[in-house]
C-alpha cells in the first residue's frame, strides 16, 4: 500500500501531516514555517512561527508579539522523523525555500524566488528534491529579465537626465525588497536619495542586521522637498501620483516591476518610465530552477499556472496546479504593502 504523501494541500495552506506543520498558511494554524516576510506569505494569527534568522527582524516588526523560532540556512530540524531545513531563495533578505524530507521523499517549497544575485538577498541555491513547489508569477516565455547591471545603468542614466532638466526622479517600488534593491543599484554620486517613511522603516530594519545600503534622507514634515531638486525619491507604488508625490514639484516618475516588460501595462500606468526588474524568476529562471532540482513532480502555484503546468507536462514532468492565496508580484499600484 502506498503511504500517504508527505505534503498535502488544504484550505489553510500547504501542510505536512507527519510533522504537523504548515508552510506559509493563509488561515490561522498551530505551527507555521514561513518562507519570507511579505504579507501574503507571513500572516498573523498562527500559534508558533519558524523562519530564518535574517527574516526574523521584519517578521517581528510586522507581526508584533509572536512566538518565533529562528534557524540558520542549512540547519536541520527534525520533527517526528521529518527533516526540515531552510535554504536561500534569493527573493528578499532572509527569504527561504523550505525543504521537508522523510524516507527519500523530499519536498522543496520554494515560496517566491529569483535566480539572479541581487547583491542584498542571500543568493538562490538549487536544492535537489523529488517534489518541487514553485511559483510562476512570470511563467510565460515573454518574461525575460536583463542583468541587474543593465537596469542599474538605465535607472542612473534616467536620473542624471532628469536632474539635468531640473527634475526630481521618483521610483515606485515595494517597501520591502524592491526598494532596497533599487537603492543598492543607484549611483549616489549623482545626487541625494530621499525615501518615503514606509520604505525607510524597512531600510532601518535591514541596516540594523548589517545589510549595507547607501545613505538616505527620510521625507518627514520637517523636510522641504523643494530643497532637494534633482534628487531620487523612492516611494511605495501607492504613493506615486499622490499629493505627497506632487510636493516635490517638477518630477519624472518611474515604476520598477517585471510587469513593465509589457507595453500595455506600462502604458496603463501613464508613467514616464518603466524599469523591468523583478524579485521573481523570469521564464528561463523558472525552467532552470526546476531542472536543477532534479524533481519529477512539480506543483505550480500563483501566476500563469495552467499554461506553465501544460508546458512542464509537455517536456516530461508530472505537473499539477495548486491553488493558493499567494499573490506574487501585483501589477497594480494600490497593492497592500508588506510593511
Amino acid at each position, binding site marked *: 500500500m502506498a503511504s500517504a504523501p508527505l505534503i498535502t494541500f488544504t484550505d489553510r495552506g500547504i501542510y505536512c501531516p507527519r510533522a504537523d506543520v504548515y508552510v506559509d498558511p493563509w488561515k490561522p494554524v498551530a505551527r507555521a514555517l514561513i518562507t519570507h516576510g511579505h504579507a501574503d506569505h507571513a500572516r498573523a494569527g498562527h500559534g508558533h512561527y519558524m523562519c530564518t534568522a535574517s527574516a526574523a527582524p521584519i517578521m517581528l516588526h510586522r507581526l508584533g508579539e509572536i512566538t518565533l523560532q529562528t534557524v540558520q540556512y542549512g540547519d536541520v530540524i527534525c520533527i517526528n522523523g521529518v527533516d526540515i531545513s531552510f535554504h536561500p531563495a534569493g527573493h528578499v533578505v532572509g527569504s527561504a525555500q523550505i525543504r521537508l524530507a522523510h524516507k527519500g521523499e523530499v519536498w522543496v517549497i520554494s515560496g517566491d524566488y529569483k535566480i539572479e544575485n541581487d547583491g542584498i538577498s542571500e543568493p538562490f541555491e538549487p536544492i535537489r528534491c523529488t517534489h518541487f513547489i514553485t511559483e510562476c508569477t512570470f511563467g*510565460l*516565455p*515573454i*518574461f*525575460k529579465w536583463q542583468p541587474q547591471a543593465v537596469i542599474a545603468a538605465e535607472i542612473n542614466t534616467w536620473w542624471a537626465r532628469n536632474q539635468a532638466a531640473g527634475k526630481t526622479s521618483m521610483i515606485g517600488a515595494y517597501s520591502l525588497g524592491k526598494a532596497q534593491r533599487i537603492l543598492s543599484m543607484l549611483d549616489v554620486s549623482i545626487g541625494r536619495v530621499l525615501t518615503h517613511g514606509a520604505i525607510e522603516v524597512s531600510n532601518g530594519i535591514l541596516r540594523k542586521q548589517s545589510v549595507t545600503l547607501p545613505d538616505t534622507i527620510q521625507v518627514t514634515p520637517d523636510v522641504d522637498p523643494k530643497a532637494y531638486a534633482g534628487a531620487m525619491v523612492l516611494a511605495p507604488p501607492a504613493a506615486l501620483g499622490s499629493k505627497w508625490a506632487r510636493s516635490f514639484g517638477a518630477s519624472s516618475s518611474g515604476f520598477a516591476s517585471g*510587469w513593465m*516588460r*509589457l*507595453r*500595455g*501595462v506600462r*502604458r*496603463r500606468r*501613464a508613467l*514616464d*518610465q518603466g524599469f523591468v526588474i523583478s524579485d521573481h524568476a523570469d521564464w528561463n529562471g523558472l525552467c532552470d530552477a526546476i531542472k536543477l532540482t532534479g524533481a519529477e513532480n512539480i506543483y505550480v502555484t500563483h501566476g*500563469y499556472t*495552467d*499554461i506553465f503546468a*501544460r*508546458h512542464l507536462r*509537455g517536456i516530461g514532468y508530472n505537473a499539477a496546479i495548486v*491553488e493558493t*492565496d499567494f499573490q506574487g508580484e501585483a*501589477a*497594480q499600484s*494600490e497593492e497592500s504593502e508588506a510593511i
Partner: protein
Amino acid sequence: MKDFAALFKTLDETTKTSLKVQALAHYFETANDEDKLWTIALFSGRRPKRAITTTLLRTWAAECAGLELWLFEECYPIVGDLAETISLILPDSSDTYDYTLTHWLNALIALSKEPEDLKRAFVIDAWDHLNGTERFLFNKLITGGFRVGVSQKLMTRALAQATGQDEADLAHRLMGNWTPQTTSFETLIEADDPEAALSRPYPFYLAHAVDGAPDQLGPITDWHAEWKWDGIRGQIILRGGTHFVWSRGEELMTDRFPEFAALLDFLPSGVVLDGEILGWKDEKPLPFAALQKRITRKTVPAKLLRDTPVILYAYDLLELNGEDLRESAFSTRRAQLEALLQSLPETAPIRLSPSIEANTWEQLATHRAQARDKQAEGLMLKRCASPYLAGRKKGDWWKWKLDPLTIDAVMIYAQSGHGRRANLFTDYTFAVWNGNDLVPFTKAYSGLSDAEFRQITAWVRQNTLQRFGPVRQVPAEHVFEIAFEGIQRSTRHKSGVALRFPRMLRWRQDKVAKDANTLDDLNEMLVIYG
C-alpha cells in the same frame, strides 16, 4: 530606423500631447524626406500591403524561440499585440543593422513577390540584427497599425509646426489616395496647392449632455428640438464645382461616401452643410450596425453601396453663396437650410432633419420617450438665438439622450483583458435565469472602476470552478446591472437576443444571484424595443 525608433519611444512613453507634438516636429525637422513621407503614411493609416501572413510570422517566431506554437498562442492574448509578442519571445539579438525606415519598407514591399523560404530568411535575419524596439517596429511594419496615441490631427499639427505651413491646408494635402510610391514629400507637402482653401471645413460645434431635466434651460420657446441620430456627424462642402465630406474628427471621408457626389447636381456651389450621415432605406434610418460596414471601408464595393446607401440628415447650414453664416442665429440658419432643401427630389441623398414641436418641457419629454421608435438616441436642444460656435462649448447645444435599457444579470465566466488590462479579469459573460438554468446572453468589459476590477480579479482567482483555456468559470454569485442601447433578435446567440453597446452600469453587491432578471424579462424587452 534608429531615429524612427527614438521617435516611437518618445511617443510611447508620454501621455502629454505637447511632448508628442514636440517629438514629431523634431523628427519632421531632422529626418530625410523619404522617411518623413513614410512616417506620414504610417501615421495616417497607409501601410504597405502585408508581405507576409501573420500565420507564417507566428510559426517562424516560435521556431526561433524554440517554443511550441501553442505556447506562443497563449502568450499572444496576454500581450495583446502580435508584433510585441514576437519581439518579446525571440532570443536576444545583436544591434548591428542601421538602415533607414525607407530601406526596410522598400525591402518588405519587394519581398511580397518572393517565395516563402526567401521571406523566412529575410525576416529571421532582420530579427537577429535589430535591437528590441526596432525589432518590434519591424514587426509592426509587417503586421500594420501603429497605435501610439498619435492621431492624424496631432501628426498634422506637428508637421505644421515643422514646416511653418497652415494646419488645415496640410490636413487637406494629406487626404486622398496617395502612397509614398506615388508621390514625394516635396509634391505632397511643399508644392503650391490652390485646392486647399476650397476643401477647408469649419470646426464642428459639439453638444454637452443635459444634466438631469432640461427645464432649467428656461422657456421652451427659446429652444429648437430635433432627434439625436445614431450615425456619423459630418460636414459636406460644395465649393468650386467639387465636394468634400469631413468627419467630426476632421478626417476627409469623401471617398467613403461616393453617393454625395450627386449633391452637386441638386445644390449650388458655395454651400456647407452640417448633419448626420445615416444608412437610409425605405425613407428611414438603418441601424448603426449597417452603417458601421461603410465606415471601415476606404473604398466601397458596389454591393455594399446598394445594400447600405447613405444620406445626410442635414440640421445646420454654415455657408451659403460662399458666405460664412456662423455668426447668424440658429433660427435664421435653419430657415435658410429649409429653403435650400425644399422641393429636392427623393433621389437627392439628403433630407432635412425634422424639427420636433412642443409647447412644454413635459410634452417634449413625451416625444423623447419615443426616440427608440424613430431609430434615434434621444433629443438635441439648440438655442434659437445662438451662433454656430467651435468645439465643445456649454450653453447653446445640448444632447438629451434616452436612459439606457438595463437588466440585472449574473456573472458566470471571466476572462483576462488584453493589452493594458492583461493581468486583470475584466471580460465577463453574463446570464439570466430560465427556470433553474442560467442562460448566457451577453459579454461586457467596461463600466467598473479599477478598484472593482481588482476586487473581482482577486475573487475570480480564488473561486475558479473550471478553466477553458483563458476563460474561467466562476460560481454564479455576483450580480451586475447591465446597461445597453438596443436589443435585437439573434439566431447566433443561445439566448436569442443581441444587445447594442452592453456595459456594466454597476456592481449590485446588494443583490444575490436569485435576484437577477429572467430570460422572459429579456424577451419582453425584445418585444417592446427590438
